[in-house]
């Protein structure tokens, strides 16, 4: 019989791992910690020996519903009114690995909640659910500096994943993460060189590589997904080929899929809108995973369910 060769690459590089969450033995209160990264090959190719840790899924929780689409609320009902109830629904009903808490209410141009109020929300969510937390500010540079400092302190022993540092603003958030040994998201704008640059800046500043998770900006299906897909692949390939400054796990925020109008518009020709929106996000998520994501931040429980099924099969289940 013909012997078909298995084209196993001899990669010299390996993706580092990052731990999120701390259990009692590390002084925290999480029921379980989440470990991401560690690949030694391109995604889902077991013949390259690549799958170490199952990619993790974080459920999105926002502390204001200002920009949250009505369509997305359906799955949670009134729970979205309260970050604690919302987080519990994610964990208890939909089995996510982490909660991603976005503290948008701190935006000085909108609700302008104080850093203390925001930190209090973090404390409540930590008390209500056993999973590790990802925490974002509102995107306003000066305010986030204060908010994230307060968050860092209130979750001191919990090893949060803090979002995010970018080239133009990284020092205060890096300091907030270093102060209490939290992990940190290094954001860059759809460009492999920028992805490397922010990691260099952070490590020069003193952040340890095992504390960094890269966010190369996932563009939505139909809104530039192809750019993200290829940037992610290039980052992962470069890392495996030995570029140590790119050897960190990757997170992709697929809630951006809800910004694509085709995903959420009512239009009979395009089929059921609930189904379509869920698949729009699930498709974006699948493209993120296949191109290298180790962790997803997701909005739709239905999309989470689809992605979990896909992961189950991709990792060898049937």
């Amino acid at each position, binding site marked *: 019989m013909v012997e078909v060769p298995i084209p196993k690459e001899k990669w010299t590089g390996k993706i580092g791992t990052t731990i999120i969450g701390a259990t009692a033995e590390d002084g925290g209160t999480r029921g379980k910690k989440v470990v991401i990264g560690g690949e030694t090959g391109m995604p889902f190719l077991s013949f390259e020996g690549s799958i170490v840790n199952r990619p993790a899924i974080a459920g999105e929780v926002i502390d204001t519903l200002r920009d949250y689409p009505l369509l997305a609320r359906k799955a949670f009902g009134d729970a979205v009114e309260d970050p604690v109830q919302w987080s519990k629904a994610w964990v208890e009903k939909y089995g996510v690995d982490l909660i991603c808490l976005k503290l948008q209410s701190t935006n000085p141009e909108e609700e302008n909640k104080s850093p203390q109020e925001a930190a209090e929300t973090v404390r409540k969510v930590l008390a209500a659910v056993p999973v590790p937390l990802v925490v974002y500010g509102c995107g306003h540079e000066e305010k986030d500096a204060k908010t994230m400092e307060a968050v860092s302190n209130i979750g001191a022993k919990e090893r949060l994943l803090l979002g995010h540092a970018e080239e133009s603003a990284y020092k205060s958030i890096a300091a907030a993460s270093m102060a209490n040994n939290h992990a940190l998201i290094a954001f860059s704008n759809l460009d492999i060189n920028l992805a490397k640059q922010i990691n260099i800046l952070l490590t020069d500043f003193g952040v340890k590589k095992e504390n960094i998770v890269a966010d190369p900006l996932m563009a939505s299906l139909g809104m530039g997904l192809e750019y993200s897909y290829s940037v992610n692949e290039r980052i992962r390939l470069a890392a495996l080929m030995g570029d140590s400054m790119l050897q960190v796990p990757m997170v992709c925020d697929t809630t951006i899929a809800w910004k694509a109008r085709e995903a959420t518009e009512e239009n009979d020709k395009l089929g059921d809108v609930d189904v379509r929106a869920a698949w729009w996000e699930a498709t974006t998520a699948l493209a993120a995973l296949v191109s290298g994501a180790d962790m997803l931040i997701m909005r739709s429980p239905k999309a989470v369910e689809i992605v979990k099924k*896909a992961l189950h099969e991709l990792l060898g289940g049937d």
Partner: protein
Amino acid sequence: MSCSEVIEVPTAMEIFKLLPKKNCGECKFPTCLAFAMQLANQKAKLEDCPYVSDQAKATLAASAAPPIRLVKIGTGSNAIEVGDETELYRHEKKFFHPTAYALIISDSSSDDEIKAKVEKAHSLRFERVGQLLKMDMIGIKNDSGNAERFAAVAEKVSKMTDLPMILVSDKPDAMKLAASKIAAKVPLLHGANLSNAEAMAAVAKETKCPLVVYEDTSLNQLADLVAKVKTAGVEDIVLDFGAKTLKDLIEKSTIIRKISVKKIFRGLGYPIFVYAGEGERAILRGLISTMKYGSIVAFDDIDPATALPLYVLRQNIYTDPQVPIQVKPDLYAINNPNEKSPLLFTTNFSLTYFTVVGDIEKSKIPVWLQVIDTEGLSVMTAFAAGKLTPEMVAKALEASGAKNKSKRGEIIIPGMVARMSSKLQELTGLKVIVGPKESSGLPKLLKSLE
């Protein structure tokens, strides 16, 4: 069969060994070695040497063949071409032949069901950023086990559609009857397997139709079967390795693509067919195959709400990484404008242009739309990259004579580039109206201006 199937890309030295070594110069290169070096770099053609032996020709032709065979299915403008890919990752160059999607109809369905399914296949199409996204093929499956019924349904459906067809049966007699009825449409025959390979290959050869080779135990078995079918004289082959799970699907597809494009192994250099089935699992198979090297994906059923994301994924993945999908920069007349109609501008990125035009058309209000050449970048991306400046807008307006078409003395600009207002006003003398950040807000603004 032995490892003689494994052919590495020939080096100049290897080619040189096969040449006549006359150094006569008739190939327009001074020596055989110089010619060999040009051949290795694909800068010369073997035919240029009049003295190469047939054996050398055969050896070199085999290694010069495209890594994945181009297979054509159907005829006319709807014909499908799959295969002929050269890359593992799209950023290395691009992916050339988009995954084709097929809807499968059972020949044990009633005539009404068959008609409805054909109509469904035709209705699963959407216009998006100037491209038509559609179901590309219709397949007929021989569930009835009856050759006459199979042939009758194939013939009937072939009259109802212009789409290329697939015939699915493992019975050579049924396949022969059906294929002979619609051979002029060059359907894809699915297919040959371990027990029917010779007879199926004969049908494919006789009807000159491409043939799927199906074998789900291992790629080794599949390669053996492919070699057998090839020996029987069939060249246009499509592979079906009968993926059982998504893991199986992504791994085997990757192995086949990689060994083919890297020319590590030539026996599986053919397009891949995936039977997806129906339901959520089928969509997942479709999505994975679209990203990872599937050429044809067949569904038993699919709905618009899941077909659209699937089609859009294909459109994204198969976009040329060097060239964003763009429209011609120009002054566009929308909804029959006149001198009193407002003037707006946007960029020539297709996604931007069609989103904006869609919103304007919804409002039914006539406008002049100046499309700026931003090399296919969106508003914000172009602005951030310095490819959408007030100077460029002013110049484009001048060149198109827009100010003579719309005589309101105003221009509406995208809300995202409010920062260019005063400069643009200064350069054009037009009053600048800052529009909404998202063009979905345009109808409201346009109405307020009426």
